[in-house]
């Protein structure tokens, strides 16, 4: 009886999971379907999941009209750099905040939370002026700097949680065994933090990869613009859009983050398991 209940409960869980996955996947699948549909199928009253006459015309048109490859390269540089720099800065800060709980670190944590509530519009003009004085307008470096600053609070917050999850006893044991502070950090703490660092980097990457408003305002020339900005060039006034090319370009824009997530996700899981065994 108990086994049967357990099986039915498990079946229910799988059905719920499947439903959830379908729900999550729907927009992406529809995007793929739209990307391969000719214009006349896009205007059909009875749209189909599978394009009746699949075409690559939308992709051709998208590449023909906008510098998508250049934009993708810019996005990749900005997002990867921002993720890397944010993690390099946030990791030691998070360690300090997690291991030394003082009023200052509590205030810093509070500030991190509050800073997430600031709307972009409030920040953009002072930020613009600062970057202008630094001659960093229309510069990918300027944008990377903004992305790092933008990602840093949340990255810090995430990493503090990961550091706290690492038992201090492990570091103490390493110390008792004669390991130096640096050796303890490098050989014991950092490996255990690896999944958290990777997850944080992924968060920073995706945030930067998808970001639109800062890129729109800070980058002026077409050769500097990132993918989210270039995607808006397929949109007209009052919601009019070149739907096919837009879907094709948006589909291509989602691929890098999907691929990255697919690759890194295994490492996150692997790292978590490794951490569990050690602790």
């Amino acid at each position, binding site marked *: 009886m108990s086994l049967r209940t357990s099986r039915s409960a498990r079946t229910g869980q799988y059905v719920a999971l499947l439903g959830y996955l379908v729900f999550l996947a729907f927009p992406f699948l529809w995007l793929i379907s739209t990307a391969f549909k000719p214009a006349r199928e896009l205007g059909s009253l009875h749209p189909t999941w599978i394009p009746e006459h699949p075409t690559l015309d939308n992709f051709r048109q998208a590449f023909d009209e906008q510098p998508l490859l250049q934009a993708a390269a810019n996005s990749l540089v900005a997002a990867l750099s921002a993720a890397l720099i944010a993690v390099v800065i946030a990791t030691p800060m998070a360690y300090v905040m997690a291991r030394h709980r003082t009023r200052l670190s509590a205030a810093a944590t509070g500030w991190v939370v509050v800073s997430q509530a600031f709307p972009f519009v409030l920040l953009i003009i002072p930020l613009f002026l600062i970057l202008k004085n630094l001659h960093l307008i229309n510069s990918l470096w300027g944008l990377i700097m903004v992305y*790092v600053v933008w990602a840093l609070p949340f990255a810090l917050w995430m990493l503090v949680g990961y550091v706290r999850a690492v038992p201090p006893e492990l570091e103490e044991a390493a110390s008792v065994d004669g390991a130096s502070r640096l050796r303890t950090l490098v050989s014991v703490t950092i490996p255990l933090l690896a999944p958290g660092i990777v997850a944080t980097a992924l968060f920073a990457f995706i945030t930067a990869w998808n970001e639109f408003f800062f890129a729109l305002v800070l980058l002026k020339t077409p050769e500097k613009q990132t993918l989210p900005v270039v995607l808006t060039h397929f949109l007209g006034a009052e919601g009019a859009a070149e739907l096919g090319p837009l879907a094709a370009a948006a589909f291509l824009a989602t691929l890098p983050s999907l691929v990255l997530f697919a690759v890194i996700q295994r490492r996150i899981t692997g790292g978590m398991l490794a951490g569990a065994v050690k602790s």
Partner: protein
Amino acid sequence: MRPPVRTAAAAATALALLLTGCSGGGGGTDTNGKIELRFQSLAWQKESVDANKQLVKEWNATHPDIQVEYVQGSWDSVHDQLLTSFEGDEAPDVIHDASDDLADFAYGGYLADLRALLPDRLTADIPEQSWRTTTFGDGVYGVPFLQEPRVLIANTKILKASGVRIPTPANPWSWDEFRQVTKELTGKGKGKATYGIAWPLKEPVSVTLNLGLSSGGQLFHRGADGKVTIRLDEGDQVVPGTIRDQVDTDHSAARTALGMGGSDTLPGLFGGRYAMVPLGFSYRQQVVEQAPEGFEWKVLPAPAGSDGLAQGVSPQTLSVAESSPHKKAAAQFIDFLLRPPNMVRLAEGDWMLPTGTAALADPALHTTENGWATGAALAKGLRSAPAQSVRGYPEWKDKVATPALQEYYSGAIGRDELNRRLVDDGNRVLARYQR
């Protein structure tokens, strides 16, 4: 503990130094005596982008001393992007926008007054009613160059089979006749669609106000003291009343379309679900691209009221940034872009009508193909959109008028409540801007 902190501090310092050393550079300045202008265009359809880029190329080839860089902007976010650029003193020299977006920039001192910069040829070529859309206070802050009337795009087969009178610009439907026609087109059987019309009213305010001009609707009234107040007269009730009756009383307008954008209604038009949809003139391009083989369609004028075929528009504009050090050169470039043959190229690229009298007379814009002739015939009835220069209009539109009209059209509130909200709540909003 200290080593990581020190490492982090060192890394942060090094990063800051590295970043401050990497400058992206700006633009719009003289180098070796050559003037460099940045032209931010909002063209987005391929033909339109191509036309703009080609014109920039032609200009650059013939003006070695004034070189123009084409910069792509987007309609979706142009206001915030420009505002930030103005505040940061990094605005493009030549700015493409819509006239209803200019008021705040003009009053804010961000745009140059063009009166002394533009040549007489261009000033005389564009009619006074179009200049009114870019005149704020005593200054002119943009050159209106493309505009589009709202038209009815109709399924020709359904219209012909139903036997209703086909309207022309010379003999349009009245609003009463229009209501009757949509009833006749609704139903089942030959010559009938599921609905006579689909009103895509995701953004109901501009449609309601702009079409309201045909029946004398004004809504915004400027007093002797210069202050604007909202008042609903008889003429203001015609358009919203007709739509409400079509949706709620006659059931000749699709209720589900009320939340749609213009593009969303096209599949229903192509599939015979709707006999007609009221759309901007430029939507013809999407019809041409997306309509199934054999779909026959026609462009009809919007219904006429006591003021004939008048309707409000917010033309696309070209402005010059006040901060530009090369205003005269920028105005010269605008003059080049808007020479009649060039204006025709831009209009064809955007599937819109030029404001210029000479360009509008071009035979290419008077063919019956794709409804060009019908649109061109409507041009003389186009006026400045009612709320064009009213400060506080965007807030009134978003916070008061949009939800009120949406609720009214869907039948959630009645006419008295609509009037109360548009007028009482609306005047409170406007008052804050006019203290």
